[in-house]
């Protein structure tokens, strides 16, 4: 069966036609919550790897990441829920639900991340030595940040109903994007006048190289991901078609590829000098690309039409 034998049907009210129905419940608020969660956790995790000599920078970057997770991410999730004040019930199924596991990780990041930021203030601004307790809290907060980065992707991968999501590359891709966001924001913050000199020229060059490496990795992963979609079931092909040609080509080619990958790879090469303006442009482009790919993943996810079950198809056609 060609994937275009079945129509794409986008309707808020139920339809009685067999077709590719996009998921219509996880829209803007979930996109924003996932985006903020991955970006914030990525920034926080990256801050833990900033050299001790740049402790002030590490503090500021860590605080920024923590604020993004503790504020917007939690707020968007809270507003999205149909019964927001029952959010605590989401903690009751860690055995089977990745959403519950993500809740725990987010709460852990909010708690231990806050403790880390508070304890690290002395290290960054008063020259105190990190304590073993502080190190332990940092490790727990780092693990929590990693889980927050990856759990959205696993939630999507775990869904058997939407072939676009049911792909093991999603968590890897989202994690890589989160790390890229973390490195980009670290570079941007390092150029702020108040933190000038925290990174040496060599360190700045090294982190820029890491960023470029992540851009290349993301480029490759997107190519592989789109290619795997075309070898999957028809609903995955339909999603690929929607992304590349039919419904969202501008978002994909302009937002994800041109702005989100090619521009941020080429800009530093063309401009040559690291400056606040350049890094601000790179950061904005990176955030646009990151948001666009998440937007596409959520919007272009279509359910497999019921007729794709081969034996039922056969039965229907034999009747015809």
């Amino acid at each position: 069966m060609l994937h275009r034998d079945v129509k794409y049907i986008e309707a808020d009210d139920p339809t009685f036609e067999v077709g590719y129905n996009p998921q219509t419940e996880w829209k803007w608020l979930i996109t924003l919550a996932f985006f903020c969660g991955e970006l914030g956790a990525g920034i926080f995790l990256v801050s833990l790897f900033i050299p001790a000599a740049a402790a002030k920078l590490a503090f500021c970057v860590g605080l920024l990441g923590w604020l993004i997770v503790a504020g917007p991410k939690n707020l968007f999730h809270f507003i999205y829920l149909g019964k927001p004040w029952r959010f605590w019930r989401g903690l009751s199924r860690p055995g089977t639900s990745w959403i519950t596991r993500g809740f725990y990780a987010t709460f852990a990041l909010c708690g231990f991340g806050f403790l880390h930021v508070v304890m690290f203030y002395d290290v960054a601004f008063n020259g105190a030595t990190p304590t073993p307790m502080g190190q332990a809290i940092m490790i727990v907060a780092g693990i929590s940040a990693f889980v927050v980065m990856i759990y959205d992707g696993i939630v999507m991968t775990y869904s058997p109903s939407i072939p676009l999501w049911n792909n093991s590359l999603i968590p890897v891709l989202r994690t890589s994007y989160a790390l890229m966001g973390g490195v980009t924001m670290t570079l941007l913050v390092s150029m702020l006048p108040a933190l000038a000199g925290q990174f040496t020229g060599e360190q700045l060059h090294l982190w820029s190289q890491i960023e470029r490496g992540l851009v290349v990795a993301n480029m490759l992963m997107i190519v592989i991901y789109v290619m795997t979609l075309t070898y999957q079931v028809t609903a995955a092909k339909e999603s690929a078609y929607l992304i590349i040609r039919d419904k969202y080509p501008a978002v994909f080619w302009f937002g994800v590829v041109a702005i989100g990958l090619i521009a941020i790879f080429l800009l530093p090469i063309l401009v040559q000098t690291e400056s606040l303006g350049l890094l601000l442009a790179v950061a904005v482009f990176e955030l646009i690309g990151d948001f666009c790919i998440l937007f596409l993943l959520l919007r272009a996810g279509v359910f497999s039409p019921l007729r794709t079950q081969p034996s039922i198809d056969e039965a229907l056609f034999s009747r015809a």
Partner: protein
Amino acid sequence: MIWGMVIDLKLCIGCQACSLACKTEYGIPRGMYWTKTLIDEVGVFPNVTRVYLPQLCNHCEEAPCEKTCPTGASYTDEATGVVLVDYTKCMGCRACYVACPYQNRHYVKRGALQGYYPGKGLTPFEAQSYPHFTEGTVTKCVGCIERVMGGLDPACVTNCPTYARKFGDLSDPNSEIRQLIRSRNAVQPMAEKGTEPKVYYIS
């Protein structure tokens, strides 16, 4: 008993009596159907035909909606194997909606229970049925569990004019549905998803 259903695609005429029976039985709010008959056009002109595919919650043995639910609101009734939602626990995250391959989860939006006639209040029928729903939660087919426990067939089965839907006990090897599954090579919808649906199709 274990809830089970066999649907004969050769007998379905697409009259939607099952859809209406279900809506009437439970007073399901506007814009959602717990069961419906999908219409598909197959073939290439001039050899084209319409086929009908009744669809409802499959009350899966390995229900992805239940596994993914973070609150435990989705659960399987152990006595009947029917997958149900506890509206008092659901927080409206809609993870079950995106996890169900059969698209049989429905979110009751805020304002969905305002009635059919805006500003005119609820009709007596709506006033009787809407208290069973909760805005901001997810709802789904309940397998007519109270009818089944009372010895009746589900409403969609009772109202099918062509007897396309057969209901019975999957745990009884001699039940009509088990015999149909054996003799007519019944298939489960999207069996490749590993959900072990309790609804089977024959043709």
